């Protein structure tokens, strides 16, 4: 019985391997490139021909005061194990549990840091997403409120008026997808890119 079964065991596995492990991915890569040339290659964001990032992967803007900041990121360096925020090569959450002292300490430190760098920022204005670290360590977005409260700091560092920056943030708000799904939010890289281009166009 066993020997008779060997032929279909090997044969079916081989046919399925060719179909599912070779034909499927390669056909999909070809079709994706054809139908979605931008997305399939990684949604590259370029500035003057230089690759500056990927549209939906967050990146680190701290501690530069003139940029808007994203959420705390718990990613670490693969080689040293030391904190390396927004390390896309090693996506990771903090994994801190709800009764871990470290969680509270981290959040408190983050609040103090925001208050130190942003003039007049009150704790009751800070939304949770700006002080609690994300699931991937690469969250590209922050809530609208999280962007708005950073305006005084960015205004001070760039010399732009708060009214102008508020307008800029408003123009960058992404609504619910298809008008219904997800959350109203701001993509930090896109916001900063707009800011960067405005500042450099002035010069």
């Amino acid at each position, binding site marked *: 019985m066993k020997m008779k079964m060997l*032929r279909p065991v090997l044969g079916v596995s081989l046919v399925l391997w060719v179909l599912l492990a070779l034909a499927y991915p390669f056909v999909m890569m070809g079709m994706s490139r054809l139908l979605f040339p931008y997305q399939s290659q990684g949604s590259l964001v370029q500035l003057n021909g230089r690759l500056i990032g990927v549209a939906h992967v967050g990146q680190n803007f701290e501690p530069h005061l003139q940029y808007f900041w994203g959420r705390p990121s718990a990613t670490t360096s693969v080689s040293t194990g030391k904190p390396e925020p927004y390390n896309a090569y090693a996506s990771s959450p903090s994994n801190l549990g*709800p009764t871990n002292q470290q969680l509270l300490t981290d959040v408190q430190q983050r609040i103090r840091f925001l208050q130190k760098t942003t003039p007049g920022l009150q704790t009751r204005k800070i939304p949770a997403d700006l002080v609690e670290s994300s699931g991937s360590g690469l969250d590209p977005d922050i809530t609208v409120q999280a962007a708005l409260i950073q305006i005084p700091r960015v205004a001070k560092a760039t010399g732009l008026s708060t009214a102008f920056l508020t307008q800029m943030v408003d123009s960058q708000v992404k609504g619910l997808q298809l008008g219904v799904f997800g959350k109203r939010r701001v993509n930090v890289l896109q916001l900063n890119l707009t800011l960067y281009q405005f500042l450099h166009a002035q010069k």
Partner: protein
Amino acid sequence: MSFSTGMTWAVVFAVFLLTIKPMGTYMAKVFTFQPTFLDKPLSKVENWTFRMFGISRDSSMTAKQYGAAFLLTNLLWAILAYAMLRMQQFLPFNPEHFPAVNPLLAFNTAASFVTNTNWQAYAGENTLSYFSSFANLSFLQFVTPAAGAAVGIAFVRALAGKKLGNYFVDLTLVCTRVLLPLAVIVTLLLVGQGVPETLGAYLHAHTLAGGTQNIPRGPIASWEAIEHLGENGGGFTNANSANPLENPTALSNIIEILSMGLVPVAFFYAFGVMTGRRRLAWTLTAVAGGFFLVMLALVYFPEQAGNPILNSLGLATHQNMVGKEVRFGMGGTSIFETATMAFTTGSVASAHDSFLPLSSLAFYLGMFLNMVFGGKGVGLLNMLMFVIITIFLMGLMVGRTPEFLGKKIETREVSLASIAFLLHPLLILGGTALAVYLPVGMKGVFNPGPHGLSEILYGFTSAAANNGSAFGGLGASLPFYEISIGVVMIIARYASVLAMLLLGQSLLHKRRVPETSGTMRTDTPLFGGILFGSIIILNALTFFPVMALGPIAEQYLMVAHHLF
């Protein structure tokens, strides 16, 4: 509850309700060999394969042959997967030049993917080549759920009074007629949302802030599609579907949720069609659906209310955003996590380790029960196991010989169902006890206090349920866990599946007894209620003590603002 949460949930439920009948009918047609619209393009290849390797559609296997074929293919795949991981550096499509995977990790990974668990003790984006992804592990993401579904189909045939069928035919048809066509559609939908699908090497970006960022890409969308359609759950990257590279938008989040549930939900209906018991199928669907709603509420409301310890800081919002992503919204995150635990997928759109204790109860519930639709085929098997045990308990109470689908449930059937039922807590509690007892086990704990016990418990539960998600803080790459969790995954998968196959065979050979007015009906809301209740009681009796030491203890301590 916000507008977007309500709409997200409504759309997900609506799609499941609208697809259950057509999808279930279609699958029943495929597995009773009736013509379908995919015959034209596919039957030539399939028939050629069957002829070529001496497989006959019409000859049926016995339970022993079916089980042997199942085990032999799985063994072959495991060996090949292990070998290919060990030889990664010599294989093509490795633009980042990743070295061979070390022996223990390769064992753990092969065991994990061949058992449809997809537990990952490594970070994909800095460990695996593109070849290891699409030609090795992604292959297992197709064939292992298909093999599980095949066993489910054989069991359903036995209940319908038909012969079990041929394993190789069923395996092939699940791949070609169900998984592959859906995977093609889902891949393209995901790429449209921004998931990469390319062989291009990782990107090196020079950021605005003056730093550099090394950004992975690869054939992610095609992986993501079958990861979810097969309820596999292994991520292309470490953060899994929380990573914007795998799940970039609220819509991709919904697409992934629907991908995991479509087939397992419809499987219940296919069972109804194949056995001619549609009402029973709806009863079982309602029971599983009831558990799904309980889980969803249990995840959403605590997370929405937030962690009382952090809330006392007086921030502007109270949602627990630790380990969550902004773009999905709390509604989208909650239903993704509910779905992944219900369908035993094990992919995650947020960090389970950072969920509040009450929400984590829903995660454990999904894995303890393993039949809130569950993986395709296997979830139905577990549901029917509970049905048989419940019928037996009811029979004891009224003092009649229990019957199911016109067959008497006697010692052998109850024994086999009990073995399948008891194995689960034995592996979970035994594994956890061992890890807590041994210093090497305790070394893997990341969060102090009762949460540490929850981490260990979650690991073994995930392995025994072939779920694959984790409380990510656990040191899964410690040799102790690589071995013990690998072994648990293997025993859990094969022992229970084989017990259920034997049970099917034993029912098949029984004489049919006529239904009388004294027969207990199983297709009524009354039976559904009793089934729901007995599932709760059976599992509460088994797992309440350990829940009390882990999540429940932590809940009380959290409310009392106790930190560790």
